[in-house]
């Protein structure tokens, strides 16, 4: 970073940083993770666009009205919303450095996440049992890809949640674990935001088609 002009006339004041200053550990993690989430957002945008294009091509197969049960979707949405607020409570207790309460809220969050996945898999199993498999029509291919990708994200979120609970149990709420929990918090709330798009575009607008 040192410029030649500095050495020639040392009496002149230097207006730039010669060496890069020290960064505290993990200082850029949050921004980096946010940028990862934004790239994930683009993946979902492409899947939504695919569904938007193919969502009406039933190939004389079942349409959303024949397949979707909005009561089940509403229940599923409730599970994810509740898991979002309980994760928020976990973050609030983490702020107060209460290990036990944080772990308890994380367990509750995980259970709501499991309930969400369970309901979603039940729905998928029911659809596949009725012959509405991904191979049936372009609508179903794009449906399973979009909703399945979201479900996969929730699954990995649960794996991550479990890992962090083991970490917190072993090492407590140390700085590194707090940072990890904050990243997972962003991930978890982000999945909830994606789900808003899913239940609106796929389920509600699907029923209105």
């Amino acid at each position: 970073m040192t410029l030649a002009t500095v050495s020639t006339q040392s009496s002149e004041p230097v207006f730039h940083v010669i060496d890069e200053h020290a960064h505290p550990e993990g200082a850029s993690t949050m921004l980096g993770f946010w940028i990862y989430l934004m790239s994930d957002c683009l993946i979902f945008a492409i899947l939504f666009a695919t569904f938007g294009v193919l969502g009406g091509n039933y190939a004389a197969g079942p349409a959303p009205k024949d397949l979707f049960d909005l009561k089940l979707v509403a229940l599923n949405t409730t599970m994810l919303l509740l898991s979002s607020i309980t994760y928020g409570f976990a973050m609030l207790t983490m702020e107060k450095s209460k290990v036990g309460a944080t772990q308890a809220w994380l367990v509750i969050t995980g259970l709501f996440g499991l309930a969400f996945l369970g309901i979603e898999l039940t729905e998928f199993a029911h659809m596949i049992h009725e012959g509405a498999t991904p191979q049936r029509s372009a609508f179903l291919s794009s449906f399973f890809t979009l909703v399945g990708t979201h479900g996969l994200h929730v699954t990995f979120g649960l794996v991550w949640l479990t890992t962090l609970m083991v970490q917190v149990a072993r090492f407590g709420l140390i700085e590194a674990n707090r940072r990890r929990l904050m990243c997972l918090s962003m991930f978890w709330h982000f999945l909830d935001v994606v789900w808003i798009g899913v239940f609106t575009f796929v389920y509600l607008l699907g029923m209105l088609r």
Partner: protein
Amino acid sequence: MTSDSHALPSTGDHGHHAHDAASHGTLSSYLIGFGLSVVLTAVPFWLVMTGTIADKQVTALIVLVLAAVQIVVHMVYFLHMNTRSENGWTMMALIFTVIMVVIALTGSLWVMHHLNVNMMPVHDMSQMP
């Protein structure tokens, strides 16, 4: 939260604050966000399930507007988005992403819709000589 990390002398004199991006909410902000998102979820489900509004296009429009509002609510109350965190870089990344998403979505739907419309005369093929 931010004022705490500013007050610490050990954080140095530069504008780097590890916690700014994830500045936390309070209990009341989480509860307000939760309450709003419950209402914003329940209303569109109720509209579609009961079919209160006969016109489907009007229902679809209301559902879409409510979804957009709910996404903003989640961004503000759960993801704690603001223009200050990380010196505005999170907001910058978000704005860039939103532009990309809008281009990808509207572009795909627009182009493919017109392609579909122009491919339509499939049914008329039988009447052709």
